[in-house]
């Protein structure tokens, strides 16, 4: 019994360390969303908001906030951009996720499980497009988009984002498909066609992997900042990260920055929750 007790002790300790590692960096900034400017500027830094207020959340959506004592927190000038950004980020991420998943699942299955000529070369082509640093393709993309009239459009942003998500999600899924038990050989021996094997046998078996692929695509799209900053900032197609950067650089507003950052974390966090449920299901199967 003592053996079991020490085991539980180490597990609890490990979990505590993992939770501290996970939450400390987030907590340190998110707490600003509930603090006033003077509280944030206090020295030494405060560990928690002494009197949590929700002013920043009203301000970023364009509302003034008046406390019981009559102090007024002015609405942010960035509010319109934040609201637009929230909407646009959701649209872009939804479309990018759908297209990426549809394209990448068959692609990575083929690369993981079939032997065929030119496989190495085709894989290298995908690797090359993963390796392109955005900093070096930004200016060419920008000039191309100016010529085509695609700056400040959601369509343009979706196309650029797909060039990020497709190669990287394919790369991650290839490893996953390699580890599935090789049942399709049996299915093929039984005379099923390739498409039937893929859609009726592999896809249900790999459901969790496909969910993970969709989540990865969503997050890469939702979190994309570099292209958005250059291609859509200030336009009606602005996305949330680009809209938020106004609180970081022009006039630093830590409280409103933290509030909008927290807002931008909510959809990914919900999705991460579903992802976890899915992996738990996989365990039973």
């Amino acid at each position: 019994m003592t053996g079991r007790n020490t085991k539980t002790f180490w597990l609890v300790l490990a979990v505590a360390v993992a939770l501290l590692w996970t939450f400390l960096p987030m907590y340190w900034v998110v707490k600003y969303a509930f603090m006033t400017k003077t509280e944030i500027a206090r020295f030494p830094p405060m560990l928690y908001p002494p009197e949590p207020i929700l002013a920043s959340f009203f301000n970023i959506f364009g509302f003034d906030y008046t406390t019981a004592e009559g102090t007024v927190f002015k609405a942010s000038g960035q509010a319109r951009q934040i609201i637009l950004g929230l909407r646009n980020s959701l649209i872009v991420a939804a479309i990018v996720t759908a297209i990426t998943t549809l394209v990448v699942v068959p692609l990575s299955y083929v690369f993981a499980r079939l032997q065929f000529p030119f496989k190495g070369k085709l894989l290298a082509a995908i690797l090359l497009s993963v390796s392109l640093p955005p900093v070096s393709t930004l200016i060419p993309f920008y000039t191309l988009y100016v010529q085509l009239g695609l700056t400040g459009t959601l369509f343009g942003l979706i196309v650029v984002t797909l060039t990020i998500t497709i190669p990287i999600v394919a790369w991650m899924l290839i490893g996953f498909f390699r580890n599935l038990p090789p049942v399709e050989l049996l299915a093929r021996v039984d005379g099923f066609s390739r498409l039937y094997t893929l859609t009726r046998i592999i896809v249900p078996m790999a459901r969790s992997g496909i969910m993970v692929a969709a989540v990865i695509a969503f997050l890469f799209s939702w979190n994309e900042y570099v292209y958005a900053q250059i291609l859509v900032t200030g336009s009606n197609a602005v996305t949330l990260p680009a809209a938020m950067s106004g609180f970081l650089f022009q006039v630093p507003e830590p409280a409103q920055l933290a509030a909008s950052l927290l807002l931008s974390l909510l959809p990914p966090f919900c999705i991460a929750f579903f992802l976890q449920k899915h992996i738990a299901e996989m365990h039973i199967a």
Partner: protein
Amino acid sequence: MADTTRSDTPAPPRAAEISNLSFALIISVPVLLFLLVVVAYPLAYAFYLSFHEIRFFGGYSATWNGLANYSKVFSDQSFWSSLGRTLRFTAETVVLTLAVGLGLALILKHLPAKWRWLRALIILPWAVSPYGAGIFFTYLGRGQTGIGTAVAGWFGSDHTLNLISARFVIEYLAVGAAWNMAPLVAFFLLANMLTTPARLYDLAKIDQMSRLETFWHVTLPPLRFTLFVFSCITTVLAMKTFDYIFTATQGGPGGASAVLTYTLYKISFVNLDLGYGAAMSFFLLAVILGATGLLYLLWGRKEERQ
């Protein structure tokens, strides 16, 4: 044709059956074509820029200057120091990410059923954008606002304790990058671990393997390919990182975290020296491809043969 005669598929002759190659081509060619069209143009344009001197003052002009931009890179001190920072940041990030990812995966795997909801919490840092991670770690580390000063304050000190020092800023940034990326690695490793049959662990127990031996011979082998893939992915992402470093340190303090992408940003977007920036960006691309190629040669080939 040759692949239909593989020994493990004694396929009965089928009339309307297509070969592995055509099936693969049908699926991958449209995607590759899309990537080619959308990626090739910017690449070609960057290539064009790299052979010219671009001026904006007194009207836009592009003057052909041959390989001058490329040879200038070799003698540029800031290129070599930025490259050194990129390599240091990348190596540290990859090692930390894989180590933390493996550690988190082992913890998650051993969670009893009633604690399994904790998995949903552990993955959260990965949902944070590199941009957001940069903001988190800049406030966490800076002397004025950071955790260092707060902890010093507990012990009655009123000194500022700055975690973002010129000397260790790269290490600090690598910790933040690993914080951001490791949960994803952990979840892929966990998914792999769960496909390892439980009876292998029973066999290991019968063989009286120690805990370390069990980890080494039973847990680790099925994970090695995933570890390889993620070492490549993390290498590429770390070398490409721009937004994270941009929001975390802006290359500071005093240029101590000006990695190659940041130096490129300054050349192209601040100095507007587009030709030179384009030439240097091809060196970055070569470094990224070289590093992943090296990883493949040293490690990946071995894994693929198994």
